């Protein structure tokens, strides 16, 4: 097919159609849904990080005004635990330790916020009042908070994991790595932490369980990134109810960032309780509960060693990481530090020998799982930090050290030593673009000028690569995934020629209703405003794996392209019948079916109408209707990459860091909507800069969350951020294995920016002898680094 560039087709910055309802307050979030006779659940959560529950007395609560049900673990004996979706094997071949994650605590609580009792009442206030009447007698147990302590003799949190280790995983060639490190001219060694983050979607989690006693069908309205996955996990593992009796609806969702991928206890509880009570049950998290119950992100402690030869070529990388799982395994917790982290250790570089070992550790803290970037930010941070350290220690320009070690365009496809095969890329081009945008050459003058004002100016570079669009089901399956990773899309052409698209991808801020409509408009030649995108309802969409890991366009969009091709093929059959020619003679372009070499044609609308009014169809060879479904299973990950350059000024008197300039050059392959892509990068950068400078979940030694509200958990705000200079490369390297050539852009900003910011801060302080700063680089942290450098 050939394409005329159109105002609403591929490549156009179409304004987001969904924003019309969002900015006018007409979105339909789960909390906006209220069902007749709805009751409200309130969860009583553990105030202890670790305790044995001696007794629970719910008598007074049960008889309190408005209470319809009080639930404890005893009532849930028939329910299974919350499952983990990915089985990781330790390097000795043993399967990971997978202790039960009950819906409500069974005899032991393991983190502050662990749900113990659910009180269901006519109103939220009554449920809360009654919850205060529940008496729980706890016997406090020592809390295990620090990962190093957890793995060195602390009492076990789970009987099933005696050393608090979930798995001890390894990837790469350890012997070759050790040898290369022993023989290296220089080895840069860094101990670093990747700070724990709270996801903080604007819309807190919200669920409504409903039950139809006539049909036996459960409906769960949920604020989720992947309703079909929730149906699968909740149905098969927790409720033990088949899919056809469960409908999961997840309409407008106000942000997820990973935290709404997982199946949560509260979802199962409202679904179960609605059936018990035969009336709807709703639960809406408040912000304080979100801090204590939404799966958190990151939280790694790592030692990384990078070996260089005399020319500065990387010869080996050794990584040893402790990854915090929190108190239980969340849905995808196990795969984040392994196959989404360890496999990224080559970064953008030709490092020949890599050994990465990850120990996943249980602690008495909120479970940890994917958060925007999921494993790849942690990998990128340690690689890009240790490269800067190596540059600092060997007196090399950090830009040139990267350039020297980049995988060159001619080397693709490139097989890394850590399992991945990168299909395409041109890292040097994004480096040159970012350096030019940042005026890297002019930095010395800016630094001198800042110095004259008493400020320390620094510049930092980070390259990143990510593996997106996860990815072939056969590979995922071989690596332990308990599900496939494909996507499904259905295109329904209505009799009057308008189009309804059902996608298994899920939009919770990404703008799919616009991007996907552009795609379909382009492929079918149907006007943009004649296309509706439907997502988030297992009753309307055949199947779906949802949205995370920047997979919607690369996988979900590709499924739609395949479905569109099937529509065109069927359309040609119908047109051939209408035009009384053979199918092979019909061509399709821009919404017109045409007999090749003639001016005889039928437009898309005429064909659609005929499909549903088949008065003289040869029914043996031509079915009525025009609706097609495709499942697309990618052949590989996609590999977006880019280079970010950050410039900061540090106030040495206070330690305050200001980001003065931030330039991004990204290669996302083909781009459907440049404006949406830019917005995705902006959002990612804000979150990445937030991680670098502000955000931190802090627990005290007893496992109490100190940063349990915005009084102490610092979110990035507009005045923490500069005006971003964001561009996509002028020499894109489209993905070669998906039909769109797209790579994914949702996480890049959050992946590449933390090391760029920290590299810039360390660069600003390098003259003082500072070589590393942990995130978040708060004023106090930076001030202390300056003090100890000056005194030290």
């Amino acid at each position, binding site marked *: 097919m050939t394409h005329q560039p159109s105002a609403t087709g591929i490549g156009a910055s179409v304004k987001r159609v969904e924003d019309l309802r969002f900015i006018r307050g007409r979105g339909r979030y789960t909390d906006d849904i209220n069902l007749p006779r709805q009751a409200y659940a309130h969860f009583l959560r553990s105030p202890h990080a670790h305790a044995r529950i001696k007794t629970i007395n719910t008598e007074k609560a049960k008889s309190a005004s408005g209470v319809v049900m009080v639930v404890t673990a005893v009532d849930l004996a028939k329910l299974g635990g919350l499952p983990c979706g990915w089985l990781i094997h330790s390097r000795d071949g043993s399967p990971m330790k997978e202790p039960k994650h009950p819906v409500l605590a069974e005899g032991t609580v393991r983190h502050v916020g662990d749900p113990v009792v659910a009180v269901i009442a006519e109103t939220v*206030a009554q449920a*809360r009042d009654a919850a205060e009447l529940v008496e729980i007698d706890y016997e406090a147990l020592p809390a295990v908070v620090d990962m190093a302590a957890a793995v060195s003799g602390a009492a076990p949190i789970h009987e099933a994991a005696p050393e608090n280790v979930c798995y001890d995983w390894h990837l790469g060639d350890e012997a070759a790595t050790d040898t290369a490190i022993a023989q290296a001219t220089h080895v840069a060694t860094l101990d670093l932490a990747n700070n724990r983050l709270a996801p903080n979607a604007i819309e807190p989690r919200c669920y409504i369980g409903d039950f139809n006693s006539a049909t036996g069908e459960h409906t769960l309205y949920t604020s989720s990134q992947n309703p079909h996955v929730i149906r699968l996990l909740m149905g098969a593992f927790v409720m033990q109810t088949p899919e056809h009796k469960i409908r999961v609806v997840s309409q407008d969702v106000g942000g997820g960032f990973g935290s709404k991928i997982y199946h949560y206890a509260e979802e199962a509880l409202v679904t179960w309780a609605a059936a018990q009570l035969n009336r709807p049950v709703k639960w809406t998290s408040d912000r304080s509960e979100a801090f204590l119950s939404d799966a958190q992100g990151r939280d790694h402690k790592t030692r990384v060693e990078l070996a260089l030869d005399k020319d500065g070529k990387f010869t080996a990388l050794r990584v040893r990481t402790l990854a915090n799982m929190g108190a239980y395994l969340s849905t995808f917790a196990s795969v984040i530090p392994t196959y989404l982290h360890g496999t990224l250790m080559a970064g953008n570089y030709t490092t020949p020998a890599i050994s990465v070992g990850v120990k996943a550790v249980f602690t008495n803290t909120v479970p940890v799982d994917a958060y925007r970037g999921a494993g790849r930010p942690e990998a990128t941070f340690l690689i890009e930090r240790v490269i800067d350290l190596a540059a600092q220690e060997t007196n090399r320009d950090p830009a040139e050290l990267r350039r020297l070690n980049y995988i060159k365009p001619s080397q693709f496809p490139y097989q890394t030593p850590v399992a991945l095969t990168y299909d395409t890329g041109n890292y040097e081009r994004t480096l040159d673009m970012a350096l030019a945008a940042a005026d890297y050459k002019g930095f010395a003058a800016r630094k001198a000028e800042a110095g004259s004002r008493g400020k320390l100016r620094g510049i930092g570079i980070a390259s990143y690569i990510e593996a997106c669009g996860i990815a072939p089901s056969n590979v995922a399956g071989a690596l332990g995934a308990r599900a496939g990773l494909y996507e499904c899309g259905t295109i329904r052409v209505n009799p009057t020629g308008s189009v309804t698209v059902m996608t298994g991808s899920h939009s919770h801020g990404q703008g799919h209703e616009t991007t996907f409509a552009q795609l379909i408009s382009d492929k079918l030649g149907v006007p943009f405003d004649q296309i509706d995108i439907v997502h988030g309802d297992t009753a309307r969409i055949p199947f779906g794996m949802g949205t995370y890991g920047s997979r919607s366009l690369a996988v979900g969009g590709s499924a739609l392209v395949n479905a569109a091709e099937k529509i065109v093929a069927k359309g040609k059959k119908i047109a051939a019948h209408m035009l009384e020619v053979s199918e092979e003679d019909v061509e399709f372009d821009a919404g017109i079916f045409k007999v090749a070499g003639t001016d005889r044609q039928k437009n898309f609308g005429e064909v659609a109408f005929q499909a549903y009014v088949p008065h003289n169809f040869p029914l043996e060879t031509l079915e009525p209707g025009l609706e097609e479904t495709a499942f697309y299973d990618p052949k590989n990950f996609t590999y977006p990459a880019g280079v970010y350059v950050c410039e900061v000024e540090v106030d040495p*008197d*206070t330690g305050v860091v200001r980001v003065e300039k931030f330039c991004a050059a990204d290669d996302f392959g083909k781009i459907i909507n440049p404006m949406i892509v830019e917005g995705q990068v902006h959002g990612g950068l804000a979150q990445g800069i937030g991680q670098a400078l502000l955000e931190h979940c802090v627990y005290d030694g007893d496992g109490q969350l*100190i*940063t349990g509200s915005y*009084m102490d958990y610092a979110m990035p705000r507009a005045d923490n951020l500069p005006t971003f200079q964001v561009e996509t490369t002028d020499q894109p390297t489209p993905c070669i294995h998906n039909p769109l050539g797209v790579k994914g852009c949702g996480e890049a900003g959050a992946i590449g920016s933390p090391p760029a910011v920290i590299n810039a801060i360390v660069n600003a302080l390098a003259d003082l002898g500072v070589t590393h700063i942990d995130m978040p680089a708060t004023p106090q942290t930076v001030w202390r680094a300056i003090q100890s450098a000056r005194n030290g």
Partner: protein
Amino acid sequence: MYDFQYARPANIVEARAALSGSNEAVLMAGGQTLIPTLKQRLRKPSVVVDLGSVRNLGEVQIMKDKIMIGAMATHANVAASPILAKRLPALAALAGGIGDPHVRARGTIGGSIANADPAADYPAAVVALNADIVTDRRTTAADSFFKGLFETTLARDEIVTSIHIKVPEKAAYAKFPNPASRFALVGVFVAKFKDNVRVAVTGAGPSVFRLPDMEKALAQSFTPDALVDIAVSPDRLNSDIHAAADYRAHLIGVMARRAVAACG
């Protein structure tokens, strides 16, 4: 929140009557502190007495050599007051730096000082400006009004009605915001009067306090350099994840010098 009665008195007499009706009655001004504590079920008042309808409680007026600010003056009104812009811009700037536009539209000076949050901005100003705090029954000098963490000399049923401020020759406030809450991690208000200088610090300790050493040095020479050699002791300063006591002590010095410099 728990259930409570709601009273909306039209004047101070009615307000006092509503307050004395129950030991668990509580005043509400802008509600920016009170309502969140109610929502979190941290307080269980019998009656909430809303000062919002009491007339003439939110004015900013000139009274001879003083400026009178009504207890119900919102931060937004103080920030935008033409009188303050001319006579005491440092106070208008302080109010304009509190919270966000929503908070400034509701929060009041009376509520702020009555609440005596250790990280609130206003206490530094009223102490440095040697203000009088006028209530329905007496007048108290700011120096003796603040007693400790969330503690003042106010009786349970006492109502702040206005704050009277003597206009200094020069004044400035330098705030180092908490990176998360943006309350004052350390805030230093410096006021230079004809015959003395007053320096008050908020955010750093359990309650606002003055720095006599700095005041003396500045009375000699009102320049940032006059403060360079004055070390602030970290003893008894607050420590939390954002700033340990030694860092706060250091910031007091930096903010004090910046405030003096800003006085011009």
